[in-house]
């Protein structure tokens, strides 16, 4: 998760800072809360805190904007194995809140309630972030897949030319 949020280089620092804060503020841990959710909440706060320190790196969050995305009606073959490399890139292009919601749901398999706890927002917001985020993600993957396909054509042409 840290690698997805902060990139491979800064991820270790993010994790270290997260655990350090968790130790420091362990008394704030409510035993009724899922421990992992609590740790992810700290991770998110550390991550946000770092953004504030270096505003130049602040990713643009578009969660306030209404993105009109189609329903899940993308082509059946668009998630072929060779396109899965694009998934990571497409994720990195998502607005931060969408990306975080998707990672928490699909990778960490948190419930909506836990995601709401981590992201400090209502459950309704989690739902809309997931819905919009996934649609946008599919569009980004599809776009980068199409771009790749169009870039490949000249190479294929050159190779096949005697």
């Amino acid at each position, binding site marked *: 998760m840290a690698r997805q949020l902060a990139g491979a280089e800064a991820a270790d620092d993010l994790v270290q800072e997260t*655990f350090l804060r968790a130790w420091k503020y362990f008394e704030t841990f409510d035993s009724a809360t899922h421990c992992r959710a609590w740790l992810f909440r700290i991770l998110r706060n550390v991550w946000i805190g770092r953004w504030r320190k270096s505003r130049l790196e602040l990713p643009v969050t578009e969660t306030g904007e209404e993105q009109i995305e189609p*329903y*899940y009606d993308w082509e*059946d073959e668009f998630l072929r194995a060779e396109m*899965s*490399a694009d998934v*990571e890139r497409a*994720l990195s292009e998502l607005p931060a809140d969408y990306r975080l919601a998707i990672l928490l*749901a699909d990778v960490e398999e948190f419930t909506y309630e836990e995601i709401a706890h981590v992201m400090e927002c209502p459950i309704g917001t989690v739902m809309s972030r*997931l819905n919009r985020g996934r649609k946008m993600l599919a569009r980004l993957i599809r776009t980068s897949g199409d771009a790749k396909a169009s870039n490949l054509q000249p190479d294929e042409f050159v190779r096949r030319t005697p």
Partner: protein
Amino acid sequence: MMDCKNIREIFDLYVDGELSPEAIVQAEAHLAECDSCRRAVDRLNRLRQAVKARVGHYQPTAQLVARVRKSTITSWLRPTIWTFAAAAILLVAATIFFTPHVRSVVANGLEFVAFHVDDSRATVMEGKLLCRDCLLKEEYGYHAMCPTRGHHGSLQTRDGKIWHILDGEASEELIHNSKLLGRTVRIHGRCFRRASSIEVDSYEVL
């Protein structure tokens, strides 16, 4: 019965397992009959799996584990180490304060140090012989062992200062003969100012 519009609004909840059992029954009833919605759910699931497969769970490097462990454990231990140190100092101080024997050993040790860093010079001192332990008892509540170990003679000069008489053949009587207590004596010997001590060469009872 759900229609396509209704179910597409709750696709995410369905695939994320967030629907109530009743809603799941309704959604599945629709999916069983609607090929288009079934395919849409399938695509959504594949997207979720693609994300999970691509991102997955990164195994932290041994280096990162060591970093985290070091930063958390040391920060946790740091105050504890100081707490232990403070406790140890307090314990030693309390032991010294409350244990007469240890207290005199420490006092003798300090005196030994003072004695060795001191300049000594030949002197003749005149004063009254008093029991050091009885004085300490009177002054500081020191647990004097005089009834069992006998008195310990010291010299009080006219300025009120108490001089410790160093053990030696010539000083044996001055220190341990209780009958001399209260008597005025003149001591010839060497004076160690910082150790507040005198080494006796000879003496005379006045």
